[in-house]
């Protein structure tokens, strides 16, 4: 692949902290290599800002290999930017061309308040897991791992749902800021396994209740979440969650 360099205009959301109101600021960045990752382009800009005595742009990132779920930029109107099935950190600059203007915002949702610039608070996701996104088994209680065979297809589907990285792109993309794809991925992961069966009904009811309490919106099945999900978590999981929720609501024993 031919490498090239480009000059770009960035419009980035700047916000000092949760209490202040923010706004866009424009930056010209030059000599950006097509081999850089999107976040490395931000590194270059931040180094320049520091040298100029200005405040660098705060953004979340950690593993930079698409698995930790920390990076979270809304790029040109799309969560994680233009590439399909890709986190912000794995997006590379060859997705852009010389002279482009790139608009970068934080995730926007009431349940994800902005901490600073492009960083948001996603602890609501942790609280949803606390409501029931686990199997209640204390350490040391387990039977032999091969004591319960699990159908390969079910194990594979469970894994596909468990691949969710909890980044929150689904919420950011949803016009209702619904967390249904995230919650359904966890409900599916555990409901598809025999180990998850004893708590299957209470889990889905409790997790949905917590989701509502956190201020996430309702799901209207537009599928924007699936379209931006960097791990391509399927909408089928939402269908499964709806089934689980209905059954649990009708048959729960308490």
């Amino acid at each position, binding site marked *: *692949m031919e490498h090239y360099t480009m000059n770009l205009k960035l419009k980035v959301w700047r916000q*000092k902290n949760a209490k202040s109101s923010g706004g866009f600021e424009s930056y010209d960045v030059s000599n950006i*290599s*097509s*081999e850089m*990752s999107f976040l*490395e382009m931000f*590194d270059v800009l931040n180094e320049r*800002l*520091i*040298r100029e*005595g*200005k405040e*660098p742009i*705060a953004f*979340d990132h*950690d*593993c*930079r*290999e698409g*698995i*930790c*779920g*920390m990076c979270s930029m809304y790029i040109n109107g799309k969560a994680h930017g233009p590439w399909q099935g890709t986190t912000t950190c*794995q997006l*590379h600059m*060859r997705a852009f061309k010389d002279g482009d203007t790139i608009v970068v915002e934080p995730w926007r949702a009431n349940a994800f308040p902005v*901490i*600073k610039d492009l*960083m948001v*608070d996603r*602890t609501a996701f*942790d609280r949803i*897991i606390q409501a029931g*996104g*686990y*199997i*209640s*088994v204390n*350490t*040391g209680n*387990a*039977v032999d*791992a*091969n004591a319960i*065979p*699990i159908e*390969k297809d079910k*194990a*594979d589907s*469970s*894994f596909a749902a*468990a*691949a969710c990285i*909890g980044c929150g792109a689904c919420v950011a993309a949803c016009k209702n800021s619904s967390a249904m794809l995230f919650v359904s991925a966890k409900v599916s*992961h*555990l409901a598809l*396994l025999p*180990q*998850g069966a004893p708590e299957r009904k209470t889990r889905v009811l409790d997790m949905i209740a917590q989701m509502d309490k956190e201020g996430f919106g309702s799901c209207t099945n537009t599928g924007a979440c699936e379209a931006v999900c960097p791990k391509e978590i399927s909408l089928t999981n939402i269908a499964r969650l709806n089934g689980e929720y209905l059954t649990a609501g009708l048959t729960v024993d308490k």
Partner: protein
Amino acid sequence: MNSKIPEGLLDDKWSGYKGHVKLVNPANKRKIEIIIVGTGLAGASAAAALGELGYKVKAFCFQDSPRRAHSIAAQGGINAAKNYQNDGDSVFRLFYDTIKGGDYRAREANVHRLAEVSVNIIDQCVAQGVPFAREYGGLLSNRSFGGTQVQRTFYAAGQTGQQLLIGAYQALERQVALGNVKMYSRHEMLDVVVIDGKARGIIARDLISGELERHFGHAVLLCTGGYGNVFYLSTNAMGSNVTAAWKAHKKGAYFGNPCFTQIHPTCIPVSGDHQSKLTLMSESLRNDGRIWVPKKQNDTRKPNEIPEDERDYYLERRYPAFGNLVPRDVASRAAKERCDAGYGVGSSKQAVYLDYASAIERYGKIECSKHGIENPTAEEIRHHGMEVVKEKYGNLFDMYAKITGENPYEVPMRIYPAVHYTMGGLWVDYELMTTVPGLYALGEANFSDHGANRLGASALMQGLADGYFVIPYTIGNYLADEIRTAEIPTTHPAFEEAEKAVADRISKLKNINGSQTVESFHKRLGKIMWDKCGMARNEAGLKTAIEEIQQLKKEFWSDVKIPGEIKEMNPELDKANRVADFIELGELMCIDALNRKESCGGHFREEMQTEDGEAKRDDDNFCFVSAWELKGDSNWELHKEPLIFDVAHPSQRSYK
């Protein structure tokens, strides 16, 4: 320094220990507070297990959620001596492979315990709902990994670390819901508080507000991972750091084998000065890929234009018995040797080819035969071969394509070794306690189980072993004598002093107001470390490195520039704190490497090699753990813990 290894035969040490260890009764557990720093596999599993037992746990991580710790990025798998494949595996074999793979620089008793509890880990993870790969019969699937002759690696596609961490994270969040664990995310530990010689708490910084906080605990567990980012470029996450371990070191904890670093042979090479981190390509790629460079120096032809007889498959040439599957340390050194000699490829010339063309052809022919295609065309063979490779390695090939923009099905991948893991860490005894009573280190943060080289799929095993199955027993032996210790108020002078020292250091850093960025210092440190304390080390280079690092330290403390305020979210300030500690650690690593005048595992001293360039161990003089005690600025004292091999007798590793 007492390693507290139990008496008795190797097989009986752990069961004997568990049978006689002191216990804390449930009513007393409720009164005891434990601080856990870091929430990767070791930290999250320890927090969950100790919370389940009834202790009051406070867990800290610098990320926005405990689920993000870098254990999540582990790809390949986790070893366990289950012998589900009926292929001759056993606790003894896992123990022996690990000791040998570590080039006889690990403690026998610790490694044997690790092998024993490995089977419990898999049971526990499956019970938690970790979706490991399965066969059609519904039972668990295994694959093989480097350094072993059995199939004992359990996996979940190329995301085993993610699935294990999510399992531990969910167990942790369950304890948070039950009120047994209190979670502090976006918090960074900046000091250990020691009262009357015992660890009694920490000073942490709330990274959102910038405020310092004091937290009391009857014991403190550091589960803070490795320090590979001292090299600036590594496969670690951007935030991975040595700060917690380094603060412990400054408070009296010895640092074990700091120079033992693992350089992983198959990573995507550096593409330019802007590079911020390196990405690993799973070891499994060496099963089918062939590694080569051109026979001609500075060959500028494209790989596909270089005919077969002008390629040097140097691993197959040098190591006919193991070929491309030699252990990580050997493969890495061989790649470096070729590139240094002028045979490297790509624009940087710091890369070698990992070629799938012959695998595609081989698989293609098999598939054509299966499909009954007689006299298949080259195109047909290629088509069928690509399908097979896609199924086996598709996600890795996609990742390579995303990062490099090249299609690895068409052109050979370019790879180069990169820093991946650190076998060294805080020195701990058999109970995982450091030399500071009440201060423990678990997982990659300690030095204990991998010797001078870690085998693939063993890091996950160690993290979870320490957290789920070792610390719940060993910590009781200490805490049983602490039940009369009431909660110490954080107004105690030791807390005051520690907080003041942290605050003073932060304001000192902030007020330097120099001209160079934190990042630029980190890059320079990384270059010194990589050039002189990386894959190959020699006396002159290490001595120069020590001088350069001391100079860099002076420059850092007089010319670093940190924007923003102290009392706010300030990632540059966080980074400055970490880089300051990396600089000091770098010096100790070089001192340790200089002191260890032998080659073993990942530590290669150029003066100590066989005639054909292989690592030469010196068991007569260096069969010990180096445990360094900090005595003052740039001043350390070496303590030696002799390694005694009762069962696995040291021999020379050969892969020819």
